[in-house]
């Protein structure tokens, strides 16, 4: 019954991928920006988390709270002083600026932490919550999934029911009108990035608890995030969870049928196929033709 186990793990892993993608989806939805530095920002959060966990003798909750503060600051500064300045300069500059940020961040990590693989020590990884003869559920995978659902619901609530969320959505719908009504859209963008960083910090913690990582791991998570956003659709938080699950299942089925070496490849190929079938991505409204 290995296949049931793989399916189950794929679904639960989907929670992690949804978390990884959520911040990117938010940023894409609000400011139509494909943030190439997204994966690296998550890994930066992972490293900060790791350092903080050591500082606070393994208290991960405290570690992630402090990480969130750091990441909000980083996100705010990057958005305000770099990205906001190029957002209205056509399609290439924002893309290339975030690409530059991505490269700079991953090399700063390399410089500070070296190229070795790291992980955030935790006991959840070795515990199985459910253990039957057909399948088992590991605590960490379950945690991924639960956190994803909690965060997604919270985000959904914020966007629908708070003034902050409403002004974000107003900006996303129509920049000109929002500006006419006195909304400072650039400021909103900075706050959006902060919100995305809160989510990405949590994602960073989960990534570090689940897998080993290097300074260059950001690319991998950028691709996952991008793929999930494409599959799941913009501004649709439940869609993001679905996208994560599809990616998770694709990967573990690839591993099941072709061996673990093909896990990554299977995920990438599924993304490429979806990108091809939905050339504009599921998230963008159809333009001409």
């Amino acid at each position: 019954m290995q296949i049931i186990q793989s399916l189950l793990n794929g679904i639960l892993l989907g929670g992690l991928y949804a978390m990884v993608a959520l911040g990117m989806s938010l940023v894409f939805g609000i400011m139509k920006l494909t943030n190439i530095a997204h994966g690296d920002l998550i890994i930066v959060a992972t490293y900060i988390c790791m350092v903080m966990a050591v500082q606070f003798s393994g208290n991960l909750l405290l570690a992630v709270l402090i990480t969130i503060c750091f990441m909000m600051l980083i996100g705010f500064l990057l958005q305000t002083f770099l990205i906001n300045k190029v957002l209205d300069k056509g399609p290439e500059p924002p893309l290339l600026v975030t690409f530059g940020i991505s490269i700079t961040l991953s090399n700063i990590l390399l410089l500070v932490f070296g190229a070795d693989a790291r992980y955030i020590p935790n006991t959840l990884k070795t515990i199985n919550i459910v253990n039957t003869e057909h399948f088992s559920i590991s605590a960490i995978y379950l945690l991924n999934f639960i956190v994803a659902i909690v965060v997604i619901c919270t985000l959904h609530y914020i966007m629908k029911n708070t003034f902050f969320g409403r002004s974000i959505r107003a900006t996303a719908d129509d920049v000109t009108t929002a500006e006419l009504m006195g909304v400072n859209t650039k400021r909103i963008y900075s706050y959006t990035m902060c919100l995305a960083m809160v989510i990405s910090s949590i994602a960073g913690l989960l990534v570090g608890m689940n897998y080993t990582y290097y300074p260059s791991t950001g690319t991998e998570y950028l691709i996952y995030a991008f793929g999930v956003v494409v599959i799941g659709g913009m501004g649709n938080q439940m869609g993001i969870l679905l996208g994560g699950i599809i990616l998770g299942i694709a990967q573990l089925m690839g591993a099941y049928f072709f061996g673990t070496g093909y896990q990554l490849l299977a995920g990438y190929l599924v993304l490429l196929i979806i990108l091809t079938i939905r050339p504009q991505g599921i998230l963008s409204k159809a333009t001409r033709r």
Partner: protein
Amino acid sequence: MIQLLASKPFKILNIKIIVLILIISIFLTLPLWSSEYIISVFVLIFLYMSLGQMWNLLAGYTGLVSLGQQIFIGLGGYSLAVITVLYQLPIALGIIVGGVISILFALIISQPIFKMRGDYFTIGTWIVAECLAVFFSVWTYVRGGLGFNIIAAYKLSTTDIYYMAVAMGLGSIALVYFLLRTKIGLALMAMRDNESAAETLGVELYKTKLKVFLIAAFVTGLTGGLLYLSIAYIQPRASFSITWTVAMVFIVIIGGIGTIEGPILGAFFFILIKQYLYNYPGISMIILGTVAILTILIAPKGIVGTLQERYGFEILSIRRR
């Protein structure tokens, strides 16, 4: 007065040609009077110049911002390795096969990848490159993650490689220059200004972009082969690494996107910084990343574009008169 007016452009043309001949002869005779180290630095400059020209042709002239050009570096390098190591065939064949395979692969992926627009194209190309990196790591035919020592390359002197690099670098400049002066160049300029207007005047957007994509794949593939001649060791993670495209992006952004002179200057700049900080590879990437970001913010047209705007000169003009 009339005489003066008539002779002025002629004189400028003359000076241009003289300077050009001078520069080319300096580069051609370089191995005769300079050190091994300088020669090897210029090998890199010329090869990266070619990479920059091709990325510029894509991003600057065709609007195809690809972050997957490392695909063709890897394919070029691996073709060289497989041909010379597994089959013991000549190096020249390895390089050419690299170019041909690159073109074929580009043709195959163009089907799905061209369905993606804008940002999707950008990340789509990158995903393809990552796929290849993973696939080559598990593909036993190319020895998986072990890679190859390209022994045949040891037989070549730096000078041999230098002349190939010069041919590649100058060839890529000439190629872009003449390409832009053909019909395709006219279409590219029109598309860059307004795609829908170009289309209603009979320009075939898809075909034109595809042609450019294939040309860039071919030249990047050849250059990849030459790069691996000088590196002499190939391994999937490094050969399909985004670092190659990072270099191309920096060269083009810093030099000046959408100009022929930009990548020439950019390549010098890039390699000099890289060599200067050779022992601190991390730092050089950080510096280059920061410089590139600042360039986009402060002088989005790069060094050459900004100078052109201010002084209105063009060394390699593609204007039709």
